[in-house]
């Protein structure tokens, strides 16, 4: 980055460090912090939206909604979140491409699933194979964001529905006594009062969300963990051995299907 870095012979003391920490790889490492922060700042409101929808659905008087809502909130307790982080991006990707295929290439009669392949017409590919690099990156980021929103939405939903049941019944009954309709009670009393009970849980969730960001690495995003691994991966005998290993036994960290 600095002009004196061009000639390593002239470097002394801390000048060496200043060159080292401004290499292209290190710069990508610093940028990846922004990527992660961008993701959590977008994932938090998305998770709130998912969670809110889930919590409301779980209290719905319509049976189907109630079942869906309760299922959504309960499933996260029984199934590891990694499963969702692996499943959702691929599933969403295929769902989007499937829909685009149906709409854009309605003349193609061949089935989409041919044996072990998922074949959609070129126009339905997401992103298009002609799209530039950043579009691909952006699409990967978007899928990761949706996965985070979905999983943390379930967590948030649990907190919110717990908060809704914690609101004292007497307050709701007071609303009823004033002649409020159920909808008014929900909007004017329940929604306002539940925050007091929800906030501690939500602040806890925020911490958990920050701690979960290394999982982005699993989703093929070049995040902090990715660059830390790149920077930390010294080439020693052991690492060559490990690289061999990776090729021989095809251990793949899940990567994006594009």
């Amino acid at each position, binding site marked *: 980055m600095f002009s004196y870095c061009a000639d390593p012979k002239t470097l002394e003391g801390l000048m060496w460090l200043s060159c080292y920490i401004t290499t292209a790889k290190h710069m990508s490492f610093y940028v990846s912090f922004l990527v992660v922060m961008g993701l959590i700042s977008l994932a938090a409101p998305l998770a709130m939206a998912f969670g809110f929808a889930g919590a409301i659905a779980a209290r719905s008087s319509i049976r189907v909604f109630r079942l869906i809502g309760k299922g959504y909130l309960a499933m996260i307790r029984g199934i590891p979140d*990694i499963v969702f982080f692996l499943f959702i991006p691929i599933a969403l990707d295929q769902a989007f491409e499937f829909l685009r295929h149906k709409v854009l290439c309605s003349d193609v009669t061949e089935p989409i699933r041919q044996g072990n392949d998922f074949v959609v017409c070129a126009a339905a590919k997401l992103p298009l194979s002609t799209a530039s690099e950043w579009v691909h990156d952006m699409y990967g980021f978007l899928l990761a964001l949706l996965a985070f929103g979905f999983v943390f939405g379930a967590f948030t939903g649990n907190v919110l529905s717990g908060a809704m049941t914690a609101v004292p019944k007497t307050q709701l009954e007071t609303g009823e006594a004033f002649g409020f309709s159920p909808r008014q009670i929900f909007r004017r009393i329940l929604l306002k009062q539940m925050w007091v009970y929800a906030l501690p849980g939500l602040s806890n969730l925020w911490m958990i969300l920050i701690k979960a960001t290394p999982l982005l690495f699993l989703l093929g995003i070049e995040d902090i963990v990715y660059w830390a691994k790149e920077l930390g991966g010294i080439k020693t005998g052991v690492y060559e051995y490990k690289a061999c290993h990776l090729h021989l036994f095809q251990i793949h960290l899940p990567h994006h299907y594009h």
Partner: protein
Amino acid sequence: MNCFQTLSDYSFRSLGYGERLLPKADITLCEQFVLIGSGMIWNIYFALLALLFGFFFSTILALGKNSKSSMLNVPSRTFIFIFRGSPLFIQFFFAYELFVILPKLGFDLNLGFLTITVETRWLTKAWLGALIVLFFNTSAYAAEIFYGALRAVSIKDIESADAFGLTGTKKFKRIIWPTMLRLAWPSYTNEAIFLFHATSLVFFTGFPAWQQKGDAIYYASYFADKTFNPFIPYPIVGLYFILMTLIVIGLFGLINKKLNKHLSPNERSKLRIKLKLIR
């Protein structure tokens, strides 16, 4: 190929027995169920052993954190803070890289009747390395739970113990420890469930799956890669984990009943499964 054949070929594939090659083409539903189930052996292994060892270590840590002497207090607090404060994902990465750079040594361990050579190389393998990470992690989380319970032990109980002339270890073993367990049990059940879920991270971090002997999620993602269809293997994993979660709840519920036996019905603490804790 019928399902019985698959069952005998792949039931213990995750341990290295049976058919060596994983199914490649024409993957059947049966193969997915059997192989993913076979991978569950590893999840159960990690969870069971980490929980077992962690139970004792976390009690020690909780006592350390509760102790007045800073010699015990500070290390316990630091340990708990580090393992609860950092993501498990990073702990796996870090531990693996650390174990890899350790010198390759062998120690002879004399057990009296036989001598086994303990090798530091084992640490880079998931069965030991990842187990140690999970053990430390669950110890820290459980220690915090036990510490909270230890502080919640009613002063009346302790005073009654004193009045009966119980002191030292006897007081701890008969009064404080059982009460601590009873108070902590619902949260500890939660911890056990989420430790179970955390085992699914093992083969997605540093630890390589040697000769494709992996856990349930490893095989599920293998199938998702091969068939390009995530809609079958992942729900299967989900199903297996839900089953295991129900079994954990059942077993811990029985222990909870035993711990609460002496109380009147309205004093008993119900097992309530609360949510999450990503590590």
